[in-house]
């Protein structure tokens, strides 16, 4: 009986770990209200990562801090690109003085390979803020 309970507990833990998106809302934040991220393929290996973030009010900063793109090369997942708001090229992913922001970055990948991204969203005001990491589904480039 105890053994069955242990097995069920392990299965439950695995299910929770494997399907994080099943839990739509699990945390509270004074800064973040809603967020989402997804990845789309534009053909020929070209992909785009989109996100949107809604804060609980107008904030100093709303958007994404980083977007990490992973590629599956047939044997392992590797980071192929990191987009950071600190890089002047991608500073647009973090907006200022707003309560909502949606944006995207694009990547020219290899056709036929799998890609997914982890987007770290952020909302902050007066020196405080919250961040969350969202992992997109994978797509074939």
């Amino acid at each position, binding site marked *: 009986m105890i053994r069955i309970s242990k097995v069920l507990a392990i299965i439950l833990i695995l299910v929770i770990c494997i399907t994080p998106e099943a839990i739509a809302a699990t945390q*509270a934040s004074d800064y973040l209200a*809603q967020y*989402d991220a997804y990845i789309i393929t534009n053909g020929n290996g070209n992909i785009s990562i989109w996100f949107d973030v*809604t804060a*609980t009010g*107008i904030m100093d900063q709303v958007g994404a801090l980083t977007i990490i793109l992973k590629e599956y090369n047939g044997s392992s997942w590797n980071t192929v690109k990191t*987009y950071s708001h600190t890089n002047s090229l991608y500073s647009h992913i973090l907006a200022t003085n707003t*309560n909502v922001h*949606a944006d995207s970055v*694009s990547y020219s990948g290899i056709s036929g390979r799998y890609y997914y991204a982890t987007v770290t969203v952020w909302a902050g005001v007066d020196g405080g803020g919250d961040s969350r990491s969202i992992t997109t589904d994978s797509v074939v480039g």
Partner: protein
Amino acid sequence: MRGVQAMSELDDIKRKNTEQLDQMSTDDLEELLKAKSQSSENTDMEDVFSILEVIEKREKTNPSGKYTGVDAAWDSFQKNYRPSSKEAKSIYDFAEDTKDNTSYPSDVKKLEDINLFRRDRRPLRRKALLRMACVIASVVIVLFSSTIVARAFGFDLWGAVAKWTSDTFGFESKDTTDEGTVTGPPVIKYVDLAEALYDYNIAAELVPSWIPNAFSLADLKILETPKKIVFDAVYNNDNKSITIHITDISEGTNGSYEKDEQYTTIYEKNDIIHYIMTNNEQIVAIWMNENYECMISGNLSEHELKKMIDSIYER
């Protein structure tokens, strides 16, 4: 041995006048020159020229026949000493030469003695090559590590290229076309949320007609992305906010909403289930109507929130 003696004699020569060179035999002067050329110490060129002048003077007055003119010397060099341009070998490279039975000029055969020293030099060359390889490997490792660290911090080290004009110097990041960014979605501004939905041909009842009196519209944005259109209105009252967030998810993507550990309650109105929860200081209502995911979030009482929801369907 004779050369060593000659070297010491050369040192003496520095202290004596050049007349003493005239007293030395031509063979001794030649040995002196050879010793000087093979010396690891810095050669005093004045001594060399003094010796050469004495030999030249003697050759002019009494030619020995050993010095056969410039043209003959050049021909001899081309024939016997000049390294093959095709093989790109040094004239002192005897590694392959010693394996065959090729006959060499007498002077070259004398130089074979140098091979005795080459055996000692080879490990030194290997060590030098090994040392150079280590230096190159270290540089590569440092550059590779720097790139990884820079990339970890989101900085494209190799993308940063120097921009140097006549009056300025700076670093500028290179924008590569294969990793180019897509600019954000067009932000469309309206002054009324209902009007915006009307313009997008959205007939569903989604917008409250009532909000608490003290709140006024602070910002209204419509964000179009490939899989969703977001209509977002924020109303402010001092430090309090109300957000009405409507998302067209026809293409199928759902957002995540923040909530705390308090229970979620259900408020049904107009046959639509509205899920009411709290997110710290704010109360939140989330519901679906057709293809639209809707949220009202703000510093409101539950009564005010339900009144806002009721106003959506009271037209």
